[in-house]
């Protein structure tokens, strides 16, 4: 620890050191805190390494894993995208969904999806400048996310318990409670991605950047 009187000098030294480091950063890949020649690895020195942090003598491929079969991929590839890719076969109606919801969801999300104790699922009131609630009905930009999320994570204590038909049905019911689909709606791999969520156009990509004088 330096004495108070040396503080200014210390700071000056650190500034110089950090400038040197910054210069190196620009000059080399980000995994470059490793030196290439088996020397001491030190971020302060920031030795330029080979691209990607790989040693210079690395082979084109190591081949340590095994190739994944199609069945293997299918078993775990359970995400669902806004364009509908990933949605399984099956279907479910608002009517069927009411029963599923009342059995599997009501305890944590309430009779009308607004009472909790856990996340509020329903608010059909739309907002202008700023939302007061952030629910499926007034905040979620894509209906497909419901499939992705409910299949993976809900009901919270018994995730994965619902069949594909039951997931479609409970989604139909939640969307109906939010006044987004009519009472006779049926959800399947065609109709679900076609649902236009009220908040979709509100979402914009992050535009923050670094730099002096910029606050976003």
């Amino acid at each position, binding site marked *: 620890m330096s004495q108070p009187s040396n503080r200014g000098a210390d700071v000056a030294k650190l500034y110089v050191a*950090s400038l040197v*480091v910054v210069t190196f*950063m620009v000059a080399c890949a980000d995994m470059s805190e490793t030196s290439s020649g088996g020397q001491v690895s030190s971020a302060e020195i920031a030795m330029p390494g080979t691209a990607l942090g790989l040693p210079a003598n690395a082979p084109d491929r190591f081949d340590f*894993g095994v190739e*994944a079969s199609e069945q293997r991929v299918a078993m775990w*590839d359970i995400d669902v*995208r806004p364009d509908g890719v990933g949605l399984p076969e099956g279907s479910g109606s608002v009517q069927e969904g009411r029963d599923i919801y009342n059995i599997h969801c009501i305890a944590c999300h309430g009779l009308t999806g607004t009472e909790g104790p856990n996340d509020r699922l329903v608010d059909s009131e739309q907002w202008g400048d700023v939302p007061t609630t952030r629910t499926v009905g007034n905040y979620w*930009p894509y209906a497909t996310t419901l499939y992705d999320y409910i299949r993976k994570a809900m009901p919270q204590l018994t995730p994965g318990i619902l069949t594909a038909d039951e997931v479609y049905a409970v989604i139909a019911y939640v969307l109906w409670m939010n006044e987004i689909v009519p009472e006779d709606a049926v959800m399947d791999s065609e109709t679900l991605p076609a649902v236009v969520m009220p908040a979709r156009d509100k979402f914009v990509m992050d535009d923050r950047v*670094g730099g002096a004088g910029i606050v976003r």
Partner: protein
Amino acid sequence: MPSAESPKLSRRTWITTTSGVIAAGLVKTQADAIQLIAQEAPTDPTKVPGRLVSEVGSRAPSEQPKRLIRAPALSSSSRTPLADLMGTITPADLHFERHHAGIPDIRFEDHELLVHGMVERPMVFRMSELMRYPQVSRIRFLECSGNGGGVYNRERMPTEVTVQALDGLLSTSEWTGVAVSTILREVGVRPGASWVLAEGGDSAVMSRSVPLEKVMKDSILAYGQNGERIRPEQGYPLRLFNPGYEGNTSVKWLRRIEVTDQPTHTRDETSKYTDPLGDGTVRQFSLVMDAKSVITFPSYPYVLPDKGWWEIRGLAWSGRGRITRVEVSTDGGRNWSDAALEGPILDKSTVRFRHLFDWNGRDTVILSRATDETGYVQPTVEQLWEARGTRTSYHQNHQRAWKIARTGEVTFGLGDLL
């Protein structure tokens, strides 16, 4: 350590009875004898033999820093006791937690990572195979983007809040693993790919989309933390680690990476971890953690016992690179001076800053503000309100303040400046 049943002998009793015990054959080794010694510190430790070596160490009995638990629920968090820590590295057992469906128990031998999607060769890796790849280690901070959310609301600005409760969703570790780029090179990314989906093996199957460019640049498939295998709370046996990104994207218990040409828009990048800006738009994929600093000493509930020389200490960090400067004000933001930075100053890591302060014993407010290598300066809360409105819940990296009263009592002081 004596077992619960073993008699609590005072040292005096021990000294007077040991020879008899040894004679009776109950204590065969020196280790047995020292097992019998009670735990209390002796008045004079130079007159009593100390404890023997042990397989796993423990903290001094009077040093018991603890995480602060939000709620005993499956989806909950616990915060790092920042005021109790020194330097920059967070002991692994005090690293903050944020889980969405509890901590899964996963066996190292059973865990597999599937990498597929827009790749030449979809592959499955066992942990032993991942560990055979060239290994990298990086000291990096991890911060939940919800950190500091409690001090954004003008109407509800707290005063009696600890730095742990406020900003304890921040920790720093040395992360060890294989570069994501090494594994993606192995499977061969196909042209047109631009994102990856990372998915966890917990019962929330936590999923986040991350730009391909980011993971190729500096992300790690981490299996080590501060020299040991990563802890279950941090994703054992494998987590994604995205340096400088909001913590939620560093998916724990990682079991799948899918290379894609678009984000998946999972629940935790739409419903959550997005920022309504007050102008009718919602900012999405706000992934980088902007520069920030926080004074950890003195902070609530510390009471300065005396005026005179005190060293103000804290942490600064930026998700955009290195910290280049930290300034401290001891007069409510009128004047600022450069704090000393304890090196090494690492990319996307915390740096410890300190500033010697001769307190005159009067009421004052102390603040810190960080600058990173891009030139970005940690903003005031007014600047954030101006830029983002008052209703966002993430990325609140504005300057923090502590009020020092003439009594020496320290409370959160941002409200005093508004």
